[in-house]
Structure formats: structure tokens, C-alpha cells
């Protein structure tokens, strides 16, 4: 088992730590142990690293460092944005607009708001997997207090028209949150061009460590805290800052900024190589969602008549790490809500796989993956394991 060559095609789940990032993190872990709130030398050293990382991250998204709030990850950033923005409104009736293809971190936070009496509209998307800004306009109500639309979708890679939606939001005077976790490092992110008020980020999707994220909060945006404690992060996220992880996030951001164009070109070429080969060599297979307007690294493909769960296992045993379109971990039986939202029947949704490429992938790995896919699909179709 351990003798097989392994290649990793699941970078939307998480990425390996970049060597430069690892170096920053380890040196910080060993040396910068002060509490960034302490007055003394050790505290000041930690504070310096913290603020450097804040500047590095802010620069990547063209924000002001004072607008960056570090969190314990992307999920926490989404929760803080959605819950914090809505709870900051003192209105008696409150309404939020989101989409049917959000990450669970936004979906579940919206469900929590509903339990608190907030009305929530979930916008449908067409087969392209892209939200129509006019739908946002039509969903607006006098009591709308938040619009939350993800920037890039984690399963399809489709990019949402955030800039257009922000013009609608601004006209209506409603704050706009975008979950940018899957966009950062893959496409250019400029919070001013996008016009967002809140924007969620996560380090481990850009070759940084797990357990650290950030929320961009445009100056003047009202946000109620969701956790309570000390006065860290401008009272928005209490708790002693995880300085080594945050410093590593900063290093990952610098790297992402330097490599953005080269990475995008490299990944798009590999992604297209993968898709073209699959479409050419495997019949009854295709691409889910729009092939345009998507992040360069993500391909979501269906293989009719094949059980995606079985495919993931078969490919893993051959050394290829991919993931299903369907959530199949312990406890879930429903096919992916994203694939269902773009109109896939449950059979095709269960026959879908997500391939998300990253810096370390090579053309040779992609070619080997396609060979393995061809074999596995043929084998599964032959024994007719139905999805």
C-alpha cells in the first residue's frame, strides 16, 4: 500500500504547507512566544510579527491592515461575518440574502439566524453554477440587513459576480459579505474592486497552516462580536493571537501574491489537460457547471453509471487523492447540495468527482491520473456498481 506513488488532487480541501511558510512558522513557534498584548519586550516582538502578517495579508487583497481581523479559520470568519453583521442590526424585522451553493459555514450560520427569527432567502443558481445579480436585486426587501454570496465555489470553482452584486448592495445600503476562502490565491482579489464589506479568508487553502483565517471588515461596517473576552483584534475576535500561525498566513499571502499569475497559468493548463483527456477518452463523462468564470485549478466531472464513493476509494488505492461531489463522510447520505442546486439528478451527482489541482502537480501526474480514471471507470461500469 505504501509503495504506490502518490499524487494529490484535492487542493480545495487543503494544501500542503509551502516550504517558506513552514520555515516562518517553525522559527516563530520556537522564538516568538510572547503574548502580543503584553507590554514587555517579548510581547512587543510578538506584536511586531502579528502586525507584519496583517500588512502582508491586507496587501494581497488590497485592504487596509486595520480592516483585517484574524480568526481561528475560514469557518469562524464566515460565522463572524454572517452572525455579526445581522446581529449588529437593531431592526425588529431582519432579512438576509444568500445562495443555495454556499459553504456549510455560511449555510449553517444562516440556519442559526433563522432560528433566531431572521428571514433568509436562498437564491437558486442555474446549471452554470453562477448567481444572477438580478436575482439579488429582486430578493431585496426593506428589512434586508445582509447579502452573503461566496466568491468562488469550493466544488465547482465557479466565480460569482461579486462586483455587480456589490453595486446592487451599495445602492440598497445593505452590507455585502463574500466567502473568499476558495478564491484567495487562485484569482486576483481586490476588496475595493469587488466592493465587499466583509470578506472571509483561510490560510490552509493558500499553502498556509490550518486553524487560522481572517475576516476583512471594511471600515465603518457594523459587526457584533460572536465570542467574548479580551480586547484583541479591535474587540472583534477576543483571545490571545496565534502568532506563529498568523505569521505563517502572512508568509503564505506574500507567496500567493508573487505566484498568482504563474500558478494560475500552470494550473489552468493542467486542468484543461485533464478535462480534455477525460472528455476524449471516457464516454458519458462531462464537466459540471460553467467551464468559464471559474477558478483555474478546479474540475468537477461526472462519469455516468459510476459510484463516486467507490471511485474515490479505487483511485486512492492506486495512489490518487480526489474527492466526491457527494458528501459521503460518516453521517451524510444526501448528494452534494451544490450539484443538486445546479440541477444534477441524484444519480449524476453521486457519479461526480472533484479534482482540485495545486502547485506541486505536474503534467505527468495528470496523465497518470487520466490513465487510472479510464481504468477505474471502465472497471466500475463493467461490474455495474450503480451510483
Amino acid at each position, binding site marked *: 500500500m505504501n509503495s504506490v506513488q502518490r499524487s494529490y488532487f484535492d487542493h480545495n480541501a487543503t494544501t500542503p504547507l509551502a516550504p517558506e511558510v513552514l520555515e516562518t512558522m517553525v522559527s516563530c513557534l520556537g522564538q516568538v512566544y510572547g503574548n502580543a498584548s503584553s507590554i514587555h519586550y517579548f510581547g512587543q516582538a510578538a506584536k511586531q510579527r502579528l502586525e507584519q502578517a496583517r500588512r502582508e495579508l491586507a496587501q494581497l487583497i488590497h485592504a487596509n491592515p486595520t480592516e483585517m481581523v484574524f480568526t481561528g479559520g475560514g469557518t469562524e470568519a464566515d460565522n463572524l461575518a454572517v452572525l455579526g453583521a445581522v446581529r449588529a442590526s437593531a431592526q425588529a424585522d431582519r432579512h438576509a440574502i444568500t445562495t443555495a451553493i454556499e459553504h456549510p459555514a455560511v449555510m449553517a450560520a444562516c440556519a442559526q439566524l433563522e432560528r433566531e427569527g431572521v428571514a433568509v432567502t436562498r437564491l437558486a443558481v442555474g446549471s452554470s453554477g453562477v448567481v444572477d445579480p438580478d436575482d439579488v436585486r429582486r430578493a431585496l426587501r426593506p428589512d434586508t440587513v445582509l447579502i452573503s454570496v461566496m466568491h468562488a465555489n469550493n466544488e465547482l470553482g465557479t466565480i460569482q459576480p461579486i462586483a455587480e452584486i456589490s453595486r446592487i448592495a451599495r445602492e440598497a445600503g445593505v452590507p455585502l459579505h463574500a466567502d473568499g476562502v476558495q478564491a484567495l490565491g487562485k484569482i486576483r482579489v481586490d476588496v475595493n474592486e469587488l466592493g465587499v464589506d466583509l470578506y472571509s479568508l483561510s490560510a490552509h487553502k493558500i499553502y498556509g497552516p490550518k486553524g487560522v483565517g481572517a475576516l476583512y471588515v471594511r471600515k465603518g461596517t457594523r459587526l457584533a462580536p460572536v465570542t467574548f473576552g479580551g480586547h484583541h483584534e479591535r474587540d472583534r475576535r477576543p483571545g490571545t493571537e496565534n502568532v506563529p500561525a498568523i505569521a505563517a498566513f502572512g508568509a503564505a499571502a506574500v507567496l500567493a501574491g508573487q505566484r498568482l499569475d504563474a500558478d494560475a497559468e500552470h494550473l489552468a493548463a493542467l486542468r484543461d489537460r485533464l478535462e480534455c483527456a477525460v472528455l476524449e477518452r471516457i464516454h458519458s463523462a462531462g464537466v459540471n457547471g460553467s467551464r468559464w468564470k471559474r477558478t483555474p485549478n478546479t474540475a468537477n466531472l461526472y462519469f455516468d453509471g459510476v459510484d463516486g464513493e467507490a471511485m474515490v476509494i479505487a483511485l486512492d488505492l492506486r495512489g490518487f487523492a480526489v474527492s466526491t461531489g457527494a458528501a459521503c463522510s460518516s453521517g*451524510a447520505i444526501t448528494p452534494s447540495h451544490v450539484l443538486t442546486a445546479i440541477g444534477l439528478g441524484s444519480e449524476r451527482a453521486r457519479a461526480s468527482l472533484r479534482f482540485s489541482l495545486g502547485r506541486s502537480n505536474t503534467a505527468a501526474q495528470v496523465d497518470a491520473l487520466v490513465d487510472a480514471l479510464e481504468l477505474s471507470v471502465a472497471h466500475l461500469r463493467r461490474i455495474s456498481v450503480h451510483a
Partner: protein
Amino acid sequence: MPEAPIAVAMSGGVDSSTVAALLARQGHAIVGMTMQLWNQRRLPELAAEGGGAGRCCSLDDVYDARRVAGQIGVPYYVVNFERQFEEQVVKPFVADYLAGRTPIPCTLCNNYIKFDRFLEMADAVGARMMATGHYARVRYDAASGRYQLLRAVDSSKDQTYFLFGLTQQQLARTLFPLGELTKTEVRELAQSMGLAVAAKGDSQEICFVPNGDYAAFLSAYLKESGMEAGATRGPIVSTGGQRLGEHAGVHHFTVGQRRGLGVATGEPLYVISTDPRTQSVVVGRKEELLRGDLQAREVNWISIAGLTEPIRAEVKIRNKHAAAPATLGPTGDPKRVRAIFDDPQRAVTPGQGAVFYSGELVLGGGWIE
């Protein structure tokens, strides 16, 4: 690829963990898989008492299975068959109770999930054989050209009663490494191999029903499906047709049951039968539970090809029953068998299995009509 791996169904219990570890120790390539069959977070009203410990598909069981797989260094996956389990095991289980039968979901699970869906998954990942922790033995008999099923060496643990539905194709690809061992030996082996689950308790009979309270499960399930459990309310009548009282639903009763009838007469009363048509529960004296024969439907033959003439066999009519001598006779229908007991048997219960043995050999079995 190297040698085709063996897919081991790992439940997180001591038996299947020992199977995985044994096969790995023998040098086989192994793929461990845990079947996620039922979401224990469903029907939350049932969760309050049990707490989830020791029930199938709890996160603890997956944790244990994963831990063992890590310990013995084999690839491990959780495969989700909840959809199939609900369709092919839970729904028939509920329907049987509502129809006045007493079902055995484990047999359905073996027939349609463990030795069907799981085997398909094994195929899918390139495994030729599958192995489980069942206490039973499979043997190929060259003379008849058939795969035979035999009772486990440890008669107190023998699980062949639940395996009567296995086809020749399924048996040809199945390994039961524990069939030759006693439970004590299995625990000792688990201990000697340092398995984390060596001292774990045995699982319950019906994995998705907390604390064995199937009536509470049925009520909760019916409520979730929008059905009123009270709709199966009806009268309790004597075998003589006398109305003795009311009951809260036929699914609370099973043939042979004595407790919980809620009617008092001079002598102890037992459930003799239930009639789903009139929703009535028929009660009577202990002797009235005795039956001299039974008809089994959907019979599956294992160690023999079928019946051409009456043969002698021992027939087991529930898991805890000591198989009783009987004569099996063919009927006009090859899928049906009539068994005439040498001595009348207590509580021949529709919905349970009738499994035919000849000594340690399992000839076949069917469902009691």
C-alpha cells in the same frame, strides 16, 4: 497491481477487528471498510436514553475501526449505505411489524447490504474476496460442486441462522476466519495482537434499535414518516373470540409474548397470533402456542441444490431456538417448503427465519409464513 486485496467489513467490534488483524498478519493485502448504515442522530427522541454507546454506526464505532486499521497499517474507508439500508432493511422491518410479523433485519442486512452492496464495493475497489467477523464456516464440496455453509465451532456464537439467504456466488467470495475459533480464543487473539478493542463488549442484536426497544423505534419512525402509530390500535381477543381489552398497536406484540398484555385473567396468557387485517391481538394459553408444522417461503438452498423428496433435518425457528427434528417436504412451489416437526414447537412466529440443518451443515432456509 499486486495481489488483489481482501475487503474486510470492519464494524469497530472485537470480531471484525480480529479478522482484519489476522488476515493482515497472514500477509494478505487488506482494505478495511466500515459500512455507515444508519444515522444515529435521526429519531432524537430515542437517543436520550441510550446515549449511542455500543450501537451500530455510532461515531465511536467508526473511531474504533479506524484505530484498529491504523494499528495494523491497512487502508481504511467509511462507505455510506444508509440509503440502501433504509430501503432494504428498515422499511421492510417496519412493514413486517405493521403486518403482524416479527422480522429479522439482520438477515435482510446480510442478504442485501453486507453480502451484496458491500461485495459490490469490494469489487469496485479491486478486491476479489470479502471477509467478515461472522461466526460461521464456508467449505467447498467438490462432490456436489457447491459451497457449503457450516455452523461455527463455537456453538454459543454460531450466526448461521442469520446467513441462510447467502447465494453460491456470495459464499464463493466470502471468508469467515472466525468460524473455527471460540469467542474466548478471539478475545485472546485480539489481546495478543494488542488490538485496542480487545475488551470491547458485544453488540446488540438489532443494531439500529436502541436498547432493543423496537416498539419505541417503530413509534418514532412512524411519527417521522408522518404516520400515526396509534392507527394500528385494536382489540385483544381470546382464541375463543372473546374480547378481553384494547391494545395500543399490533407492533407492540410478538408471538409468544407474555408480558405487557394489560389484561388479567386467571391463568397466564400469551400472544398466539396477531391479525393485521382486524388489528387484533389473539391471546391464549401456553399450550395453544404449540404448532406441529410450518411453511417457509422464499427458500434459499445452500449446501444442497433443492428438495426432490422429503428429507430429515433439524429446523431452527428463531436465533435462540435449539433446532428441532423435522421432516422437510417439497410443495408444488420450489421456493416453498413444508416442515413437519417430530414434536410440536412453541411460538412458530411469522416473519422469522426457518433454517434447515443437517448436523453442522446448513441446508438452506426461508421465511416463516
